[in-house]
């Protein structure tokens, strides 16, 4: 039977949703999945993993594991992978996953396929993944049996419904802490003041681009995001200019989002940005340039000045929210 090892990522005191998506998928596909849980004060999260179907939970818990470290995590995955006969290791294509996937694969003499957005499960297991800034889809397979390392994009699978959760306790096996490789020392984290609403999980995303012209433009659009209960994102240009923190960047090398509604204010639509939001259900673009590439993918386009459009939208939305107040 195919046994999978899944790396669970944590944020604060919770297992990240994309990790639960992987575990849920394993359960639905009737695959035996064990989970590797690494971090500081994460033991309680074993319950969530158990209810989502984890077989065995390998636990590596220590204050020194709070921040990601390539070689430490690689050693832990290697250790866990030797505890049983696993045919695949699954990770999320997060920044952590992007760094760790190739290192583990090379460590285990395994192939790796990254950023998987779908697959066909016929005679051969064939993964689909976006390439060339999502202009094409690559269909890839592993050549021989032997360890296979796969990273999946967040949001590809659904998490289990509450009714599908189990009331059980998975076995916990503690792993020894690897010796720290001092050639790379993680000094700390420069935490960014991201928005309260997670870009990757929001139903509505409001994004700003260079057309905002600067911090004043950003602050003009922000209330609209708040009004809509939307996550607030930005193009790479805005983040590189320092107008918004880097963790707000929507794009191929930032966050890939697929909300129900995506507003793009003053964003021209470079392919790397499109690759990060093209999966949105409804796209509304506002840009002064009628030739802007974003209009090719927008369901609704407004050719105009966002400094004029935004106040109107805010006023009209306030009316919708509070018909009695007007």
């Amino acid at each position: 039977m195919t046994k999978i090892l899944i790396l669970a990522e944590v944020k604060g005191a919770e297992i990240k949703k994309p990790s639960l998506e992987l575990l849920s998928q394993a359960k639905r596909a009737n695959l035996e999945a064990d989970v590797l849980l690494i971090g500081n004060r994460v033991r309680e999260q074993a319950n969530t993993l158990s209810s989502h179907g984890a077989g065995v939970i390998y636990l590596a818990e220590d204050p020194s594991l709070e921040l990601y470290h390539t070689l430490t995590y690689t050693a832990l995955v290697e250790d866990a992978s030797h505890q049983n006969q696993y045919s695949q290791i699954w990770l999320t294509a997060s920044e952590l996953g992007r760094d760790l996937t190739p290192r583990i694969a090379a460590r285990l003499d395994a192939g790796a396929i990254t950023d998987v957005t779908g697959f066909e499960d016929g005679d051969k297991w064939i993964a689909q993944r976006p390439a060339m800034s999502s202009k094409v889809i690559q269909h890839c397979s592993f050549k021989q049996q032997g360890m296979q390392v796969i990273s999946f994009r967040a949001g590809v699978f659904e998490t289990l419904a509450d009714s599908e959760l189990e009331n059980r306790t998975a076995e916990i096996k503690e792993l020894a802490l690897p010796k720290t490789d001092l050639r790379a020392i993680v000094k700390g984290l420069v935490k960014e003041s991201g928005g309260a609403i997670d870009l990757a999980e929001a139903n509505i995303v409001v994004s700003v681009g260079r057309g905002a012209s600067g911090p004043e433009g950003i602050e003009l659009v922000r209330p609209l995001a708040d009004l809509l209960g939307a996550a607030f994102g930005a193009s790479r240009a805005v983040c590189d200019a320092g107008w918004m923190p880097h963790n707000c960047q929507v794009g191929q090398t930032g966050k890939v989002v697929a909300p129900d509604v995506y507003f793009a204010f003053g964003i021209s639509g470079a392919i790397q940005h499109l690759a990060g939001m093209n999966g949105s259900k409804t796209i509304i673009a506002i840009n002064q340039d009628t030739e802007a590439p974003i209009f090719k993918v927008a369901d609704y386009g407004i050719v105009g000045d966002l400094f004029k459009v935004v106040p109107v939208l805010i006023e009209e939305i306030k009316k919708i929210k509070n018909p009695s107040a007007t």
Partner: protein
Amino acid sequence: MNIIVLLKQVVDVELNIRVKDGELNEEGLNYVISSWDETAIEAALQFKEALDGDGEVTLISIGPERAEKSLRKGLAIGADKAIHILDSAFDGSDSFAYAKGLSKILKQQGPYDVILAGKQAQDTDAGLTASMLAEFLDLPQVTNISQADKVEANQLTLQRKGDHGNEVIELSLPAVITVSDSFAEPRLASLRAIMQAKKKPLATFSLADLDIDPNLIGDAGSKTTVERWSEPEARQAGEKFEGDEVETAKQVLDLLVNETKIFATLSN
């Protein structure tokens, strides 16, 4: 500081890319340096400059004949020398096989202090080769760097874009580093630099010149294979509204209210 920069020549993905019968249609396509690798060249030059220009920046590319053009461009941007690995034995290599081949090549080159690469190649977007190479060479790695806080002869302090913010890492050399596009805008090559690049050393090696077991590269050395390519479903452009913003904003909002459920919940 001796720096190796891995360079990949790729199809210009800004162009219209078509797939025909499961294969990429390369007719009429242009080839360029993968943009993140250009950023890697820029990073290499900045590191070298931080140490008063002491050392050399060497480009290495595995690719067909046309890759030489991109190596010359890299030299024009400012690298000191280039190595072109030209051999059809590498055809059909996946990232694993490229990394294996490069590890053998680099063991024969050197010494080096830093191996720099773009975080991913613009054609595959796989992001595997450099980190696999780091493992094969038993080197520490920092990927996706957005800035370098300190550059010293045997240590760098780098910031990488992580999931929760920027991770600050002190990295001992030798090491492998990959760059994010946020690191810096690559400098442009002046016309003069382009002319001078023609005289910079560019060596071409085939498998016969290198001590590499052909079973480690190409299709034989690969762990994965691309079965086929396809085009994603194209999004159709919708309605475009021009004119007085007060009108168009209201028009679009009206349409949205009637279209999407999200707006229905707003009026609660």
